[in-house]
């Protein structure tokens, strides 16, 4: 259940950014999560829903982008997609070095400025 404490950290980051940008509310929080972090997406969503009540994130949704595990074998000069947590090089069978998949960061925030709705209205009018 470290998802809850991770989500608390995410809220701290997001609320500091909102303050810095003078935003009272936001509509989207996008995070990037490496597949080697053992962070559960469903638990993150749950923690997000629990914590957002009564904050400027009340109407926001959480979008999670997963980053696959990638390792590098120096002997073969080969980058390869990891199969789960297995780090063995598919060519020589030796252990590689992880180069991606351990990311865990807040990527961006989104604020609904009505642009999409306007476009949508145009579509409707155009038809």
């Amino acid at each position, binding site marked *: 259940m470290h998802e809850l*404490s991770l989500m608390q*950290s*995410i809220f701290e980051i997001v609320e500091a950014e909102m303050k810095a940008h003078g935003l009272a509310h936001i509509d989207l929080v996008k995070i990037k999560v490496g597949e080697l*972090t053992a962070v559960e997406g469903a638990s993150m969503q749950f923690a997000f829903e629990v914590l957002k009540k009564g904050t400027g994130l009340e109407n926001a949704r959480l979008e999670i982008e997963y980053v696959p595990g990638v390792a590098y074998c120096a002997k073969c000069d080969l980058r390869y997609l990891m199969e*789960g*947590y297995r780090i063995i090089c598919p060519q020589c069978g030796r252990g590689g070095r992880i180069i991606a998949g351990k990311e865990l*960061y807040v990527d961006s925030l*989104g604020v609904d400025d009505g642009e999409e709705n306007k476009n949508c209205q145009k579509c409707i009018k155009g038809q």
Partner: protein
Amino acid sequence: MKKIKIVKSVLKANDRVSEQNRQIFDQHNLLVMNVIGSPGAGKTTLLEGLIKRVKDRLKIAVIEGDIFTIRDAKRIEACGVDVVQINTGGGCHLDAVMVQEALENLNLNKLDLLVIENVGNLVCPAAFNLGEDFKMVVMSITEGDDKPEKYPRIFQESKVLVVTKIDLLKYNQFDMERFLNEVKGIQPDIEIFKVSSIKGEGLDELVEWIIKQLEVKKSMSA
């Protein structure tokens, strides 16, 4: 939708403090191991066995992480070493700030080895660096040979694996070969020790390995 790019690491606060801890440990030439395992894996019993064998050779202190109790701390204290208790009050892991606060209760100048017994849990402690030199994952054969598949991250993050309760092998369906193959696939460089803390088997080898880690650390800073 207007987008505001941020790119801020979620664990940055913890990582910053863990880096401070690491500097403190390095300044004191102190070897620090972060011991992680499930409840009942035998972490405290293993530490009792290790401390008895090593306390005449190294000056040791233990930070005991526990959700609510001080039971394990009392057991370690009975071995004759300093213990600092951290109760997380429900938290499932220790973080770097908790460890930094605990350091105030220890005289680091007088120590060679600091053992941090993390909260019993294979998942969350793997995500939080404390500034340690290495993580030690402790797993008993009674937990089953499928643990690396279920909790791969801790096996990937650990420098050493201690397989405990091997005196119970004959009573359990534990496929050591399958288990070790799985572990090596996740972390080929991991050191593996098989021990029985009760019978004492394998403990001397582990003690020598730990002492060697301290010597290597000291020689690198010299």
